[in-house]
């Protein structure tokens, strides 16, 4: 199993194929570009399967570790390794990439090669973030994802794409630059190493911890995104092409939550505890307030975007109550949200491709013309609302259970999402799908084709399996969650200061 550097393959296969796809050049070779992209995405997904199969659920620490010298001058290493949490995200990412490539198959007709290549390169870079065990390597992958995403939103996006892409880029850059300063500071404190594992054992004073926490917070909170730095997300989502929205919601947002898990919590545990109240407050604001904001949206994509923010509030809430249920729930929520938001954006994409409108008011009675589609959309809407038996329920339930152990009111406020979530999702569903046929455009709609059916069916199976039998997911991350929690419970303030 250790013969092949599987993690490196998972990172570099999509990137290499991205470059190949780019080389096919102009739109005359569009078909070649599409096929090549699909092969690349599929191979990228294939290599993650043996990683999952060979992953030991018993072993603590990191597996599939690979370490090569990269920048000797600063003692930076090409150091990869995964635990259960990264494994799940790795799988989710590689899986989503295949769907995104298929989803853009016919819809994208301009600059196909560049479109496909951007997604493949983006996918490889995000795998890199999930595998990196070296602070600088993490940062390089983390930052480099901005470039393809910037291009994706800006080139294939909607009317206000320029504004949205700039906002996206500058928001996220501000956060990560401060995180860079924090990483450099940690390099000196830890005695000249960028290894995350060394950072975990570095004693730090509470003041230093809080400053580092805030710097990381800037980087990751923007990515999550947490209230009040969430405003880039609705803009970016609305303007991005369907594939962009899917990747943005399904994977990019996870970089934030993953950053909290991998960097903030183990490196600065005392600051995490000291600022947990603040984090929980922001998370609850996201859950409740953004849930209400979602209720009044008239644009479907915007509604799903706000719903994403509200659901990501659950992730940060689950993380900062520091118990196993909460953290497991948070990770499950990340994965499940990846499937659900991806599916919902694809559903909106299906409608948008036919009607070129995302306005709820332009629809009505779609069920009469697209019954199969309506059934799928129903399932995903229910999942988004957290219906038991679907993946949406598992994560939310675990987080609420964890929150209950910490404080009744946290759980109470978090549970309101079950009401708001159901309200905004189902109300939108009702207005779009049910009722009389709203206009002649709706009357002419064609139901989904085989390609769309395949994508939605795969996702439907995923959310149902995860909802009914979450064991394979919770099983692999069990040890990782305990590892992280043991780091967080262990104070790092130097003894003399305590």
């Amino acid at each position, binding site marked *: 199993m250790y013969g092949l550097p599987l993690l490196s393959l998972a990172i570099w296969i999509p990137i290499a194929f991205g470059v190949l796809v780019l080389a096919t*050049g*102009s739109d005359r070779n569009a078909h070649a570009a599409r096929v090549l992209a699909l092969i690349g995405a599929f191979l990228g997904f294939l290599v993650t399967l043996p990683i999952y199969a060979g992953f030991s659920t018993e072993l603590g620490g990191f597996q599939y570790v690979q370490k090569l010298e*990269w*920048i*000797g*001058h*600063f003692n930076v290493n090409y150091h990869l390794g995964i635990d259960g949490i990264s494994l799940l995200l790795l799988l989710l990412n590689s899986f989503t990439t295949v769907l995104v490539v298929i989803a853009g198959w016919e819809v994208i007709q301009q*600059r196909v090669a*560049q479109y496909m290549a951007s997604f493949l390169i983006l996918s490889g870079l995000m795998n890199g973030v999930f595998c990196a065990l070296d602070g*600088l390597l993490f*940062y*390089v992958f983390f*930052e*480099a994802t*901005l*470039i393809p995403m*910037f*291009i994706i939103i*800006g*080139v294939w996006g909607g009317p206000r*794409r*320029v504004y949205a*892409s*700039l906002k996206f*880029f*500058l928001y996220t*850059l*501000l956060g990560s*630059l*401060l995180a*860079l*300063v924090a990483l*450099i*500071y940690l*390099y*000196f404190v830890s005695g000249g190493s960028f290894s995350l594992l060394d950072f975990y054992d570095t004693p730090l004073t509470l003041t230093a911890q809080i400053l580092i926490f805030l710097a990381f917070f800037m980087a990751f909170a923007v990515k999550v995104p947490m209230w009040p730095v969430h405003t880039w997300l609705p803009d970016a989502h609305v303007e991005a092409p369907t594939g962009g929205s899917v990747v943005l919601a399904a994977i990019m947002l996870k970089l934030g939550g993953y950053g909290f898990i991998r960097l903030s919590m183990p490196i600065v545990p005392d600051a995490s505890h000291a600022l947990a109240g603040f984090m929980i407050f922001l998370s609850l604001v996201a859950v409740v307030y953004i849930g209400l904001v979602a209720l009044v949206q008239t644009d479907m994509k915007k509604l799903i975007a706000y719903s994403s923010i509200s659901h990501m509030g659950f992730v940060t809430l689950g993380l900062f109550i520091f118990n196993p249920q909460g953290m497991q729930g948070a990770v499950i929520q990340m994965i499940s949200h990846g499937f659900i938001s991806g599916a919902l954006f694809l559903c909106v994409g299906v409608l948008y491709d036919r009607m070129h409108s995302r306005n709820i008011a332009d629809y009505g009675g779609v069920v009469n013309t697209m019954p199969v589609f309506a059934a799928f959309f129903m399932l995903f809407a229910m999942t988004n609302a957290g219906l038991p038996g679907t993946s949406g329920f598992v994560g939310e339930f675990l987080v609420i259970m964890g929150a209950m152990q910490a404080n009744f009111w946290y759980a109470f406020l978090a549970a309101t999402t079950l009401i708001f979530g159901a309200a905004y999702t189902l109300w939108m569903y009702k207005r779009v799908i049910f009722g009389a046929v709203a206009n002649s455009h709706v009357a002419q709609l064609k139901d989904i084709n085989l390609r769309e059916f395949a994508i939605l069916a795969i996702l439907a199976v995923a959310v149902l399996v995860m909802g009914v039998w979450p064991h394979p997911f919770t099983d692999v991350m069990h040890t990782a969650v305990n590892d992280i929690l043991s780091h967080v419970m262990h104070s790092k303030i130097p003894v003399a200061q305590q």
Partner: protein
Amino acid sequence: MQYIQPLWPAYAELFLLGMACLILIVDLFLRDENRGVTYLLTQFTLAGCAVITWAYSSGEPDHTFSGMFVGDLMADVLKLITYFGVMATLVYARDYISLRGMFRGEFFTLTLFATLGLMVMISANHLLTLYLGLELLSLSLYAMVSLQRDSTRATEAAMKYFVLGALASGMLLYGMSMIYGATGTLETTRIFSTISDDGARNVVLVFGLVFVVAGIGFKLGAAPFHMWLPDVYHGAPTAVTLFIGSVPKLAAFAFVIRILVQALGVDEIQGHWQQMLAVMAVLSLIVGNITAIAQTNIKRMLAYSTISHMGFLLIGILAGGLNGYASGMFYVVAYVLMSLGAFGMIMLLSRQGFEAENLDDFKGLNQRSPWHAFLMLLLMFSMAGVPPTVGFYAKFAVLQAVVEAGHVWLAVIAVIFSLVGAFYYLRVVKLMYFDDATDTALITPRGDAQVLLSVNGLAVLAFGIFPQPLMALCGSAILASL
């Protein structure tokens, strides 16, 4: 004291001088259609210099001309990069200048003399040698800026450059004379030993330092001595802007190291100039990045971007220590690589009677030529400091050095203003990728310029993915030379 020292550390300079004089004469006998010979001879001269410098590089500091001139590893590395930079400049410029009637002997001989000035500055071990190199460079540049005699803008730029440059040289000379008054010597290493033996309470010395730093600020183009820079960049023909905007920064870096570190790097004095550089660095970051946003001319925009890059460079230098200087050197090398590419691209897009110098000329470049757009994308992201490009590691190394020196606040200011800076680089990317082309002329550069530009752009990426060799080289060059 050895009176007759071997001249070999200066062989490359002597070769260049001889060849420049030869080319000057040969060119007189050439017809216009054979002007290519001058071009080839110039390229040959530079390549010859590279071979000589490479062959005679010993790694240890060697002095000649009674200790006025030094050949050390830092000098060798910087000179080699200078030759390649100038060669690249000429390749990029060839089409541009021949379309604008500047493909004449003067352009090449002036370039060679300017290069000689750069080399002398890089290898100077004596304040007068430094000054000599600087003046040789400056006078050649004044003439090059005004080479397009009919252009009022170029003439105005040359005038401004000359007046302000002369003022700065005067200040520098004044400062040097005070340093001489305080220490009794002009040789950098001896200034250092004199100050460290006698202590540095001398008011005259600090007074002289202020003038020297002001002169340096002017030559680097750091705020508040930056006023000439946008006008000269804008007014000069792009080929000359390319020259001014790239390789002289290498010599300016050497200049700072020779005078501030090697001569005045004594602890007490160092504290003084570090403070001055800190003020200049912060001002440069603010002025450069914020003013660049308002520019619509890409040459002016890059001029302000240069100012902000110089701010970053100064931060590296003021961080001090081997790491600080090495980071500064890495930064300046990375900067030269990026600015060569960026100005090269501007020239590539220009054609007969058309200067691609407005930001809008980059509109829809991705539709016209995806490859050029991609190269420019790499260059812009590199200038903005986004990984995985060399610009990121340059900024990273500087931040690393300044945090090590304990000035975390400077690092925070630097990153905040690089965020501001990211905006205007992104705007170029936005124009190239998001907007539709208004100009549909085909881009047909010469083959060699095209290949070189591709290599240049990809080097920005390659050094970003594998920065180690270049970083190690800068580290050992600084280590061997201080």
